[in-house]
């Protein structure tokens, strides 16, 4: 029997996050001899990702591991893939219908609450805070932020959310300007939570320029390679993420399991860090794979 062809299709090619994921995919290929590779569109546009998946189907891959830009937009094309007997595994798309398994590093709301918990601790449980999302159209970002707000409302009555969700278009410059504006409009803001990996970089810069490193608490999803310099100065107090290489590896592994006819069960150990005791909820496999990083442990994550 030939080695199976597994295509991992990510949201966008080339950025650190997915480069790191590709390491996992390549590792998987090296470990198992499968023909596993990763592709991604040049622009962050769901339509381009759909077109790319079309091409992969036409090429006759055996399995698709997809990180959807916009899960809804991919339903039809993934449906077609499954009709043709292609194994489909997704990641970061708990709502995806046309998938065999969706792998989530964690429950999104929990992850957001986790960031909020750290921020609330840092703020001493009181004061104004603001939230940032890469785009208002990004589902995960909104879930993180909603989870965080819910956690605050339930546990920290003395904290108040100021302003709307601030949109940063996944751009550090825009995050910077938005942070400046927030600090002008709400001079008493003490906490800021970012979602896109560039958010805390922009926020951190604004904080550092104003010399408010110690007066503010900035948390968000990011990578050490992006937020590292601000973690060092304290402009950003902590970041959270999950290791995309493990997620990439996991998707490929689960795809192979499906092809082998194996089943994933609740409480199963996928043999990967953070996925030792997965929760199965319908088709969604949840791990506990988040990592909290601050100035002290950032050296452990060189990506």
């Amino acid at each position, binding site marked *: 029997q030939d080695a199976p062809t597994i295509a991992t299709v990510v949201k966008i*090619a*080339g950025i650190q996050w997915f480069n790191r994921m590709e390491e996992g995919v390549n590792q998987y290929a090296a470990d198992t001899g499968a023909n596993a*590779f990763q*592709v*991604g*569109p*040049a*622009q*962050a*546009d*769901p*339509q*381009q990702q*759909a*077109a*790319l998946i*079309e*091409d*992969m*189907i*036409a*090429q*006759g891959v055996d399995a698709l591991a997809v990180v959807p830009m*916009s899960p*809804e*937009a*991919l*339903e*039809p*094309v993934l449906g*077609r893939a499954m009709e043709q007997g292609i194994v489909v595994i997704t990641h970061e798309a708990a709502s995806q219908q046309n998938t065999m398994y969706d792998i989530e590093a964690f429950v999104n709301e929990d992850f957001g609450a986790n960031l909020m918990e750290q921020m609330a601790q840092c703020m001493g449980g009181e004061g104004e805070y603001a939230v940032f999302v890469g*785009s*208002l*159209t*990004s*589902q995960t970002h*909104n879930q993180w932020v909603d989870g965080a707000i819910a956690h605050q409302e339930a546990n920290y009555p003395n904290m108040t959310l100021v302003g709307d969700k601030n949109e940063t278009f996944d751009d550090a410059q825009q995050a910077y300007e938005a942070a400046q504006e927030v600090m002008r409009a709400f001079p008493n803001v003490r906490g800021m939570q970012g979602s896109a990996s560039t958010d805390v970089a922009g926020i951190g810069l604004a904080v550092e320029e104003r010399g408010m490193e110690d007066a503010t608490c900035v948390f968000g999803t990011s990578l050490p390679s992006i937020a590292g310099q601000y973690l060092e100065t304290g402009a950003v107090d902590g970041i959270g993420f999950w290791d995309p290489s493990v997620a990439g590896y996991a998707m490929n592994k689960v795809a192979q399991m499906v092809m082998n006819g194996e089943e994933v069960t609740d409480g199963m150990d996928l043999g990967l860090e953070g996925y030792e005791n997965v929760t199965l909820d319908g088709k969604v496999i949840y791990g506990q794979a988040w990592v909290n990083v601050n100035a002290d442990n950032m050296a452990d994550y060189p990506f």
Partner: protein
Amino acid sequence: MSGGPRTEAKLTETPEFRLAIIAVAVFVLMAALSPDRFLSPQNLTSMAFQFPEFAILALAMTITMMTGGIDLSVVGVANLSAVIAATILTAFAGAGMVGGAAIMWLMIAIVAALTVGAVAGFLNGILVSRFGLPPILATLGSGLVFTGLAVAMTGGSAVMGFPAVVAVIGNSTIFHVPVPLILFALLAFGLHVLLTRTGFGLRVTMYGANPLAALFAAIDVDRILLKVYVIAGMFSSVAGLVIMSRANSAKADYGSSYLLLAVLIAVLGGVNPYGGYGRVIGVVLAVLSMQFLSSGLNMLQVSNFARELIWGGLLLLVMVINVTNWAGLRPRRAPAKAG
């Protein structure tokens, strides 16, 4: 084509002919590089499903460019129409609905989307003709407004949960021909007929060639412009419906990369962005070249960034080849008049 008032030289000297050579060359090259995969019926159908959505946007761009204008709001209009159609479908029909009722609601949604496209185009047309805004700014601004309205309506998230019948527009085939391809073919043919066979088309061309002379020739310039932008808006909303069906959802940011692509295709297809010249066949050939390239490169697992590079390079190459023969391509300016 014969019989029409043609001003072009011999067939082999037209930009369209050169483009046809390029399209064939790309096809042959890709087929040679990976014959079993590129030429598989699978792949051919897949390509036919992929390009119609942005090709329709390129047609919308084409007709506005014929007048020396441009429509930068096409993607905004497409998404706004789709969001409104999707809202109707989810609010009144829902995912479970089947049969006649579902079809009826789909029809209503389609009509609503086309109306949105027409109204949006009308607005663009008013801005350009009545208020005299440069099209590039009018449609840039209105595009932001349309996209913004779609965001405001949905709060930014996707609208989904349609009856199954909606999938017909984007995902089904009739006699093995993908429906979106049929739609595109109909629109392309329609636009071709409109531009070459009707008084309206000739007026559009003449207006594009010299707006001032059109005024002096008692062409109803404002009406022409208005119609052009309405048509562009309605074409965009058709593209929006195709995208909606193919994505089984509607969202404010779908297809955001299609805007520059549509401009690129129209220009590559030989449409003179300063107005007065453009042929649908050229645009179709440009679309095909783009799609062959893009699918072929995906097959070869070439980075998608390289695709952008190659598209841009192709545009420049074609222009350099055309430049010697394309004297009419000059900014719209009175021939060096002192005044």
